[in-house]
């Protein structure tokens, strides 16, 4: 006997994501899903961000890692509320994990939530976490071909960050090719070039965040 099913496998994740999105909007929280390869500087960027945000008490971070609480400890030292999700080998976060992690925060106190995804350019791109903005990051040491190799992420991001710009003079990073690929994959996506070492571009990043937070306040009214 044959049974027609026609069930979208990502439907369950999408339902959790919709519920997360509504919960965040109800609390006027701007959530960013930060996706990059391991070691490109996600946690360092968050440490710099926490240090520069006017009121650290309004910041929260969900740290996604296969193992350890090392990144969560760094975030805690920097002064933001943090909760760690260990995926125990899993290569990406899913929306039900984020839904559960939100229970660990005082949502009324938070205005900006960073979800630091598991370091991976491929798998996280397929899972909506209920974020308001998806931020993709590449560091110059990884090579300029990353957007072409992992197009799904770079097509779907709302902001693109190129990190470790201080190392540009020391590596063969083809910046025009990188910019061209990003522009073709995702026309109109803003590209910020930053260095957490020298501080280059961080003012623009903070400005982008403030605009993002203001847009959430407007959307929730």
């Amino acid at each position, binding site marked *: 006997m044959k049974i027609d099913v026609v069930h979208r496998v990502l439907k369950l994740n999408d339902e959790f994501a919709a519920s997360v999105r509504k919960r965040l909007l109800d609390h006027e929280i701007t959530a960013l899903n930060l996706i990059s390869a391991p070691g490109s500087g996600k946690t360092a960027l968050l440490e710099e961000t926490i240090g520069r945000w006017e009121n650290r008490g309004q910041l929260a971070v969900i740290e996604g890692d296969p193992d350890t609480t090392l990144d969560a400890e760094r975030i805690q030292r920097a002064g933001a509320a943090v909760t760690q999700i260990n995926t125990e080998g899993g290569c990406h976060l899913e929306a039900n994990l984020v839904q559960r992690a939100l229970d660990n925060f005082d949502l009324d106190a938070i205005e900006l939530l960073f979800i630091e995804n598991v370091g991976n350019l491929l798998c996280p791109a*397929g899972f909506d976490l209920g974020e308001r903005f998806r931020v993709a990051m590449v560091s110059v040491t990884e090579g300029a071909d990353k957007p072409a190799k992992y197009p799904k992420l770079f097509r779907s991001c709302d902001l693109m960050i190129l990190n470790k710009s201080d190392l540009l003079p020391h590596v063969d990073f083809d910046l025009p090719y990188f910019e061209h690929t990003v522009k073709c994959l995702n026309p109109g996506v803003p590209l910020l070039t930053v260095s957490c070492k020298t501080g280059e571009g961080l003012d623009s990043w903070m400005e982008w965040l403030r605009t993002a937070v203001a847009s959430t306040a407007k959307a929730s009214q």
Partner: protein
Amino acid sequence: MHELSLMQAVLEKALAVADEAGAGGIIRLEVEVGELCGIVPEAWEMAFEAATPGTPLENAAMDWRVVDARVQCPACPHEYSPSDIIWECPACGAFGGEAIAGNDIVLVRLEVGDLNASVSKTGASRDEN
């Protein structure tokens, strides 16, 4: 690596549907995998092999096929199947756009039957060897 978690979601749904139908066992699953899902064929099949032992899906077969990507041009009404990772509308030349097909993994159909019959058939062929 995400193949395993996606496969588990497929299998959970298959088991739930079979259970609801009061089926003795699952003989075959038909699955569609979107071209844009980043599924590696070998990893997908390995995930099926890894996730089914000890479940009512142990003797099931999986038929799966890739669904081509379709893109809606952001600038004109044209829909097309992209031939490159850079989506460039063949009608107007605009880049980017929205994927309207090829982004989903869908459990399409189940073939269910008497699990004992299926198991004994396997057993019989082993006896002959």
